[in-house]
């Protein structure tokens, strides 16, 4: 029996003349993701990518990987038969056996894009439904809330039968919207921000600020683990690690304590600006959520943004902790994010940070010390790590 995986387009099905650009990127992304699993043949037809294994192997890992590729709306594993109702009825009960034996209710949903097929959609549904009821007498039909929906699609190249589809990751293919630089601390929010922006087609690379000895090697290991985990959704990731200790110490020694956090965020932005300029990033991304901590009040964000030369995307800005945490669990970064290591943001946290800083005051406080030489030095001494998808 021939089996294929159908990856159905999400949003890109709605694209107009530029659709093929998105499709090309999507196919390229899928190929990279599936390459380690075996050889496949790829065909694009009717807003669907047909992925056919060359040779025999277990398709489950492939389905699992496809579910994390942005641009795919649904993933469906199906058997392919000739377009002959008798053949379909005779063969598909065996293919659906495991699923249907474990269920008590089902329905058949048919689709006929090949209008030359002699039966009309409702007829296909009735005929196949009858055949399955004969094969599995314990089943009942429930058209409203079935436990299993059997899909039968009559398409150009054959009849495809499957026992349900899995929701894809949605969004648009990574790489179709340019690239952005994510400020990655190691907390719960920034990996979620990376996921959200990758979903909008951005290539997301990370920039991390390290402050040894205030932060430990384990804090870096944690961020590296997060990058590895993110590759499942984001594809290849580059991580820029910036030595930040001297800047933080200069900040502590020269600026008023209540402004530490905001000025630190501004200095991070300035380093991110430089990195973005040198490596061609078009935007910065942060995991800020409004009102979460003192540096994430409206005023503080205003002050931080004033230091950024690029648009700053904050995809989790309107989400509460629970919503962010739910995504973090889904993308498997939560457990890593909550490991209790100090990161640069918690070093020198003022007891009473200003929640309503005024930009002019911040700029004045910041100008008490010339940070530029230290920023230059930090940028020069940056280390770059690379994480490849699916290895």
């Amino acid at each position: 029996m021939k089996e294929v995986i159908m990856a159905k387009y999400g949003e890109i099905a709605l694209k107009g003349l530029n659709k093929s650009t998105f499709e090309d990127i999507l196919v390229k992304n899928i190929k990279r993701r599936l390459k380690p699993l075996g050889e496949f043949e790829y065909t694009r037809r009717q807003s669907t990518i047909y992925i056919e294994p060359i040779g025999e192997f277990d398709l489950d890992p492939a389905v699992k990987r496809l579910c994390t590729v942005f641009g795919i709306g649904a993933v469906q594993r199906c058997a392919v038969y000739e377009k002959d109702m008798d053949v379909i009825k005779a063969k598909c009960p065996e293919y659906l056996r495991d699923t249907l034996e474990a269920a008590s209710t089902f329905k058949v949903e048919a689709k006929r894009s090949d209008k030359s097929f002699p039966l009309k959609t409702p007829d296909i549904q009735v005929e196949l439904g009858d055949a399955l009821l004969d094969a599995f007498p314990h089943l009942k039909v429930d058209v409203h809330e079935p436990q299993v929906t059997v899909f039968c699609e009559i398409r150009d190249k054959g009849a495809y039968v499957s026992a349900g589809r899995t929701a894809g990751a949605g969004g648009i293919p990574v790489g179709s919207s340019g690239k952005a630089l994510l400020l990655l601390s190691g907390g719960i929010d920034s990996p979620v921000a990376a996921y959200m922006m990758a979903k909008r087609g951005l290539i997301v690379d990370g920039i991390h600020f390290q402050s040894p000895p205030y932060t430990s090697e384990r804090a870096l290991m944690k961020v590296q683990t997060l990058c590895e985990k993110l590759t499942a959704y984001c594809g290849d990731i580059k991580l820029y690690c910036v030595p930040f200790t001297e800047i933080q110490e200069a900040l502590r020694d020269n600026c008023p304590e209540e402004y530490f956090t905001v000025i630190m965020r501004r200095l991070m932005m300035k380093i991110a600006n430089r990195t973005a300029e040198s490596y061609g990033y078009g935007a910065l991304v942060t995991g800020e959520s409004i009102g979460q901590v003192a540096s994430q009040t409206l005023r503080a964000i205003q002050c931080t943004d004033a230091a950024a030369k690029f648009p700053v995307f904050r995809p989790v800005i309107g989400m509460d902790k629970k919503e962010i945490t739910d995504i973090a669990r889904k993308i498997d970064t939560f457990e890593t994010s909550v490991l209790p290591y100090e990161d640069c943001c918690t070093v020198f946290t003022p007891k009473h940070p200003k929640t309503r800083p005024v930009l002019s005051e911040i700029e004045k406080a910041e100008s008490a010390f010339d940070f530029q030489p230290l920023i230059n030095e930090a940028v020069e001494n940056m280390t770059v790590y690379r994480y490849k998808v699916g290895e």
Partner: protein
Amino acid sequence: MIYLDNAATTRPCDEAVKAASDAARDTFANASSLHKMGINSEKLINNAKQVILKRLGCEGELLFTSGATESNNLALFGIAEAYKRRGNTIISTAAEHPSVARALDRLEKLGYNVIRLAPKDAPDNFEEYIFNAITPDTILVSCMTVNNEIGYITDTPKLYRMIKRKYPDVIFHTDAVQGFCRILAAGDLISVSAHKVHGFKGIGALYAARGVRFAPMIYGGGQQKNLRSGTEPIELIAAFSAAVEAYPTDNSHYDTLNKLLRDRLSALPNVKINSPRDRGISGILSFSVDGVHSEIMLHFLEEEEIYVSSGSACSKGKVSSVPDAFGISAKDADSTIRVSFSHENTAEDIDKLVNRLEQGIKRFRR
């Protein structure tokens, strides 16, 4: 590299490494096998038992376990189950290692009445304090020989004698991991670990006095008199025994290092020594650097390849409740550094440590 974290673990000594590799090459047979090779393995194990028992100064049973965590769990759960008809109360301390403390939490959930006494309430006569807490309902007393975080010593031989004289039916267990090979511990049950005395990780032992019954936790092939099933890890056992034999019998080296560090630290500003002078083990010295978070100082020392610990290495960032049991404030606990020696450390190590600490205090205390 200056390794001053020997209470966390020690470097396996050459004797242990050699014994393990010899055993792996020559005496690898399963000790339960009936053939001659099996008998040779059994002999090696019996010989190792004698070496360890001798060092403990005890006669009785010795069971090999996967480490002190298992030994402690086996002692506590095993006794609680075997003697549950006798009574329901277990007396312990608030300063125990998590492998005792968490096991006791579990026993409490199972319905036992667990009493945890804090050394700070009777620092000078803690033994009497524990002894006086014993009730007719008490089945088990468990008290560590040396506290792993600050080095506080409980005189277990004294406590054991007191208990047995008045309450011969009460079982006394001690977690002697930190004191093993340095000071004498006593009890009906004693837990020890190989990797704290230059053996390998993954092996420990539980001593049990004759006549003490306890229920096994691991069931299987019935090895070690049915009390701890599982093929004996002969390489680890050989290394354990070799390490114990090689371990110095004289504590004067630790005493010297301890005194040296104490003297140097007391000359530093804002440093407070947490380890008790009169009843602290010389191998461990805990102190707090006022205003400097321990982890920062730890990483600062690490930059010069000086390795110490913040409180207890097991907790890795988690807050321990042990400092409070000794009356150490939360603020001091947050800035605690634990230095622990081995016989490989030198006066020069102490010198480098203190110099670096001084630099750290200058840099971080503002």
